[in-house]
């Protein structure tokens, strides 16, 4: 299964993400597009989740049918879950659950942040929350395949 890294250069932090048994084809497409850079955002309703609202897939378009993919409610997902929302063609949203959340909407789970990196993920989450609600600091997130 494919692996990738999420890195936040301004924070000098990174986490490793491993594929999961679900939606492997979806993860393959995401990784085949890497490296990708995006603006990091935060979820404002569903709970403690990082949310990148525009992850551009410029090499390999996302052409899997929605019905082909397995959904999961974020509130039921483990902390560290990486999921896609409305992936299609050249764009997807990407969310990462870093602490408790109440979000009962469907997302497409594709990866899991490594156990050893969950504390780092939480730190990134808290800093992004500060950005969203106070400082407005702009953080880039980079996605890179790991061989």
């Amino acid at each position, binding site marked *: 299964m494919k692996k990738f890294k999420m890195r936040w250069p301004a924070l000098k932090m990174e986490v490793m993400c491993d594929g999961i048994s679900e939606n492997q084809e979806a993860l393959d497409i995401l990784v085949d597009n890497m490296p990708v850079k995006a*603006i990091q955002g935060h979820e*404002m309703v569903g709970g403690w989740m990082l949310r990148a609202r525009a992850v551009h897939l410029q090499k390999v378009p996302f052409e899997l049918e*929605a019905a082909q993919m397995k959904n999961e409610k974020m509130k039921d997902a483990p902390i560290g879950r990486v999921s896609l929302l409305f992936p299609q063609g050249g764009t997807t949203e990407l969310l990462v659950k870093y602490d408790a959340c109440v979000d009962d909407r469907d997302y497409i789970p594709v990866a899991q942040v490594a156990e050893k990196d969950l504390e780092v993920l939480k730190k990134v989450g808290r800093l992004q929350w500060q950005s969203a*609600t106070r400082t*407005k600091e702009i953080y880039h997130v980079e996605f890179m395949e790991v061989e």
Partner: protein
Amino acid sequence: MKTWQELKAEIDRESLLTTLEPVQDVVDVFRYSISKGGAGVPNDNQIFTTWFFGGADVNYLADWCYFIIELAKKENYSMEQLCQMTRFWIKQPSEFGSYCGLRKQYEFFQQLDEIMDGLEKSELVAVLDSYRSYLSNINVWVYQYMPWGVGRAFHRKDKAYYEVGRKLAEGI
């Protein structure tokens, strides 16, 4: 009139420019509170309602594109119908977005509107896919600049909050 390839290329260029750098229209409206089309001026001269309606609509514009592309995959939608759906579903919120100051996205839609009837399905889908990418960038920057911290003044309340409040109000 541009060809669809020229329009798509222009939208893609703008998407690339605004993936890591702010969309200027969003900076104007959300960072500098400029009312470009007059939105908010008659409503007590405030920009909040422009943010609330215009900013929110952009996210849904991207979803309209998503829906049309999904439906276009089915055999039972003619090109005439897809053009109708595109005009019915996208034109009004896109135009409203322009009134709210998010001008470039409407310029793109107007150009698509001019050439749409002469396109094949795959060509319309290609342009909508690019348009959706650009709209997603606008959404990113709307969320970046929206003053979410204001929400700290409106914290979620629970039963205990109102029970205490009720006790305190008893003497009134």
